[in-house]
């Protein structure tokens, strides 16, 4: 039996068990590119407008964020620049997710053991995963080319840009295949992969901001240096393909030599005692929520700093292109405040995402059986819930305060107007009552109908829809009013409505009280 035996079987197994995920990835990626391309094509429909874009985005901060695009004075160049930030994360993530899900995760769950006890050889699972990933990436590349050609990007530029995106995903697929051989858990593959994406982004950002060779050290730099709309360096595509292929070969080689379930990097020993802080209910709640707290804070900070730092450029772009002003929600008489108010809504939505995810953690603790163990001791239900609610709320206030401050500082320094700082922080804090309503909603669902917790996420999606598209779609007033965020008053463009804030806070408190009362008299685990 060769180590690659049963490759066809393994590939079929992976396709059959994961085809939904693959389809979603392809649709999401091609959809975001299509959305960006269509928006750019409609906004920049004359050579003059295209020139204003090139002028507006020339600058260190934007180079660092979106990349230094060669040939930015063309439609394809603008699409590449606009899609740059998303592409920098989505395509590596595609490579990581495709591989991690069908290699180490399957091995960890013990399903691989069952398959390998049959005819497939040791090397066939990772090889099959790589083939499946390569096929998916190829589909993404072809579909992306079609999308670009459809908005009148020249064929050679379209093919080259789509291929550069695909090659970027190939690098991270190869890297993940190798990581899957050396780490013990799928989690390790994701962590290693994300760290590599971040490092690649920072290197490319630093290199592009300074205009130095450092960009060449990053896979994102290779993607950019292909220069699809100017220069068209086809040979650069070889770099990511060779690196990704080399990593893949190394992974297949390792898979044939190691024991099933083993890993080169086995986790080190941890502490054998819990700290005093961890033993207390609040300290423990903080530990349970730490990833969510830090993750959402980091996400919101990046959003705030980027959007704040771009304030000046956006204003310049708006002055040159009224259609763009409309697109960023700043079409009114006061485009500056319009833009800032729109960013405040984004920041509030991230904060809402944080509270819903955090209350969802309570549901997860219960569904995975840990709440029962936790409540089997002297810790009462209300103390347990209070500790978690305290951590969630402090996390929310910290998130909103720090993010608003960062947004204020970034925007004030970008526009050279220190007066912005105070009003932006105040505007950010004004959204707290609306965010608290979601905390109350999440808690009430957890306490009363835990199985329906998904409704909280549906609520987030509805509010995001209303906030982003509501004004553009000219939805009826009562629909807009369904979103708690609508009632805040859209600061700093509009004035904060103190009475609404009081009502929102009261609603949040009511939901919280219902949650505490309901949780005290329901079964754990809920049936």
């Amino acid at each position: 039996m060769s180590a690659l035996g049963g490759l066809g079987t393994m590939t079929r197994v992976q396709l059959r068990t994961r085809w939904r995920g693959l389809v979603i990835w392809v649709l999401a990626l091609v959809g975001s590119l299509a959305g960006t391309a269509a928006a750019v094509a409609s906004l920049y429909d004359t050579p003059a407008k295209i020139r204003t874009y090139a002028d507006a985005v020339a600058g260190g901060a934007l180079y660092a964020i979106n990349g230094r695009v060669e040939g930015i004075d063309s439609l394809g160049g603008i699409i590449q620049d606009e899609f740059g930030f998303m592409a920098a994360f989505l395509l590596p993530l595609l490579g990581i997710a495709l591989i991690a899900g069908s290699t180490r995760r399957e091995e960890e769950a013990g399903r691989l053991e069952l398959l390998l006890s049959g005819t497939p050889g040791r090397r066939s699972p990772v090889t099959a995963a790589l083939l499946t990933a390569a096929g998916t990436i190829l589909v993404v590349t072809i579909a992306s080319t079609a999308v670009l050609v459809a908005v009148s990007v020249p064929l050679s530029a379209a093919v080259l840009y789509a291929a550069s995106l695909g090659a970027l995903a190939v690098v991270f697929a190869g890297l993940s295949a190798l990581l899957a051989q050396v780490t013990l858990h799928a989690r390790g593959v994701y962590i290693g992969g994300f760290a590599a994406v971040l490092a690649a982004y920072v290197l490319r950002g630093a290199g592009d901001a300074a205009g130095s060779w450092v960009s060449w050290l990053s896979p994102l730099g290779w993607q950019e240096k292909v220069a699809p709309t100017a220069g068209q360096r086809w040979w650069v595509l070889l770099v990511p393909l060779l690196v990704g292929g080399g990593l893949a070969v190394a992974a297949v080689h390792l898979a044939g030599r190691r024991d099933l379930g083993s890993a080169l990097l086995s986790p080190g020993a941890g502490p054998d005692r819990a700290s005093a802080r961890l033993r207390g209910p609040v300290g423990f709640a903080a530990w349970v929520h730490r990833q969510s707290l830090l993750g959402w804070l980091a996400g919101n900070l990046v959003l705030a700093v980027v959007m704040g730092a771009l304030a000046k450029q956006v204003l310049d772009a708006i002055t040159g292109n009224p259609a763009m002003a409309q697109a960023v929600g700043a079409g009114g008489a006061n485009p500056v405040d319009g833009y800032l108010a729109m960013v405040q809504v984004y920041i509030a939505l991230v904060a809402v995402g944080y509270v819903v995810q955090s209350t969802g953690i309570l549901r997860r603790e219960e569904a995975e059986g840990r709440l029962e163990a936790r409540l089997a001791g002297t810790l009462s239900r209300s103390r347990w819930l209070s500790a978690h609610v305290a951590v969630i709320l402090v996390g929310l206030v910290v998130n909103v305060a720090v993010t608003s401050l960062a947004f204020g500082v970034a925007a004030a320094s970008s526009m050279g107007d220190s007066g912005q700082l105070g009003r932006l922080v105040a505007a950010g804090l004004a959204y707290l009552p609306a965010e608290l309503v979601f905390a109350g909603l999440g808690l009430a669902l957890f306490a009363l109908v835990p199985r329906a917790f998904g409704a909280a996420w549906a609520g987030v999606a509805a509010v995001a829809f209303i906030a982003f598209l509501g004004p553009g779609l000219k939805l009826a007033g009562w629909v807009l009013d369904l979103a708690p965020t609508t009632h805040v008053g859209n600061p700093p463009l509009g004035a904060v409505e103190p009475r609404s804030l009081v009502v929102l806070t009261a609603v949040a408190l009511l939901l919280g009280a219902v949650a505490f009362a309901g949780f005290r008299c329901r079964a754990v685990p809920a049936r």
Partner: protein
Amino acid sequence: MTTEAPVIRTEALVKAFGPVRALDGLDLDVRPGEVHGFLGPNGAGKSTTIRVLLGLMRADGGSAEVFGQDPWRDAAAVHGRLAYVPGDVALWPGLTGGQCLDLFAATHGGVDEGRRAELIDRFDLDPTKRARDYSKGNRQKVALVAALATAAELLVLDEPTSGLDPLMEQAFQEVVHERRGEGVTVLLSSHILGEVEALADRVSIIRKGRRVQTGTLADLRRHTLTSVHVVTQEPPAGLAEAPGVTGYVAEQLDGHVDTRFTIEPGRLDDAVGRLHAARIHTLTVQPPSLDALFLRSYGEDAAEPAESAAGADPATARKPVDARRSVR
């Protein structure tokens, strides 16, 4: 001892999940200082009973008391005096075993540090390993050490040894035995009959949310049959027709008579007298095991629609006993 207030007492406990009555008038009493075996097939309501006793679920009817208190109203107070090992132990993947132990300890009445160290040693547990790297057996050990290291007066163990190897099973039985010697009361829900037989003073067998049998093992055995396998020189006279004898099968084998039958424990003396007269070659007498008891209680469950028929035909009702004998 029987006059002391029970540690656990339920009366006519009812718990329904929608149309399903998980507990249907369950009575249970666990006396101070005893190890009480809690047996029943899957879905009989064992875990539901335990969750009611822990105040995690509220009964729909009947009453439940732990240490004379209502576990639903006074959950935290009751929990201070007991320790619980769930059947399916869920730990926090990012914490080490030692951290999980301290976390459980922090919400218990009190933990003996010396005993914690001793138990980690006896159960051969590595407390520096992350929970996500533990096997099922090791996760189970964490919960066992956490519960057994407490100064709890009552241990509630829900199938505590699933996933443990025989060596650890042995260690578990020793520790429970020691804790019983110190006066700790134990409610032991289990599928491992050998474990219950080795540890339990009294057992309750439940099915479909009701108790079908309870008492000491000796009590329960009194109602089951002893199986006898004997080889004699001559056919035992009149044994086949003797009162209390069932399932009598005799055959000629190499000039000897090979006889198998089951008999009520109280009639054994008379039967052995008859065997002696027939000149015993070899004799094997097996007292009723818990398996037999258990299978019989479940067997009645399976044969419920034909219960009257089974009652009329003793051979049918005792079938599991014979089946077990042929396996051994």
